[in-house]
């Protein structure tokens, strides 16, 4: 079982307590009615789906129930780091993911 570090509980918890909540850092337009159909489609449907590093929202559903963001590698399924919701996208990722996750 994967252990995921919840930034609010400040410790690693079993993955069964968590739920994925889609890609992170997708900003909703302040003027939704003024969006063109193409822009809306991009915002609403189009996701990056990368092979490698992905920034995702996760929710500690059966724990503190808080949403947070996680950086995950879609190839190895390794969590590289997690950070609180609302915090900016990390500009630099830690080199050794194991060290950070085990912090």
């Amino acid at each position: 079982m994967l252990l995921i570090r919840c930034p609010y509980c400040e410790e690693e918890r079993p993955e069964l307590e968590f739920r994925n909540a889609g890609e992170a850092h997708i900003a909703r337009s302040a003027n939704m009615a003024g969006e063109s159909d193409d822009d809306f489609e991009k915002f609403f449907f189009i996701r990056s789906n990368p092979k490698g590093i992905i920034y995702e929202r996760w929710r500690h559903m059966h724990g503190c129930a808080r949403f947070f963001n996680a950086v995950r590698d879609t190839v190895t399924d390794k969590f590289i780091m997690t950070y609180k919701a609302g915090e900016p996208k990390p500009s630099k990722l830690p080199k050794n993911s194991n060290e950070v996750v085990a912090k």
Partner: protein
Amino acid sequence: MAKAAVKKAAPAASPSVERRPALAGRNVSATGVKVEELPPAERMSLRAPEPSVAALSKALGLTLPKKPKTSVSKAGRTALWLGPDEWLVIDEAGNDPLADCAKVAALHSAVCISHRNIAISVMGPAAEAAINSGCPQDLSLDAFPVGAASRTILGKAEIVLLRTAADAFRVECWRSFSDYVFTFLSEGARDAAG
């Protein structure tokens, strides 16, 4: 939510509001672990932002814990940290925590959930193993010391776990899940004993 609307009325006078325990005193004993239903208690779900915490702590008569996975207990009343702005307050002394919070002017949300939850006690040297049969958390004394509390899962049901002693846990679950949770814990107890 209805404040004090569902208070314990005298059962003899008005049988329609009599409290019927979901598990009706069910209990299971296995070698090294005993699973039984705990008596009803007053419970409150409390959400409050940081600036309100001090006022609420004062009104409740205990300091609401701010550290993850901890609880604070005083005079039969226990406050469990569930989230950064969320607590479960359990009062076993029969005092209504909702009434205490009603006096607080600071922003908060207090909801009576006395009848939503039921509590199961899991006791004995094999209690840890019995709960771990369906709960993936590390329940060793290092990771989950006495007084530690956490919302987590047991099998498919969500529970709130509180360690009351080195070999005793209080498992809180929704009333509608109680049959499942109790049966799961009973099976876990048998496995842990065997």
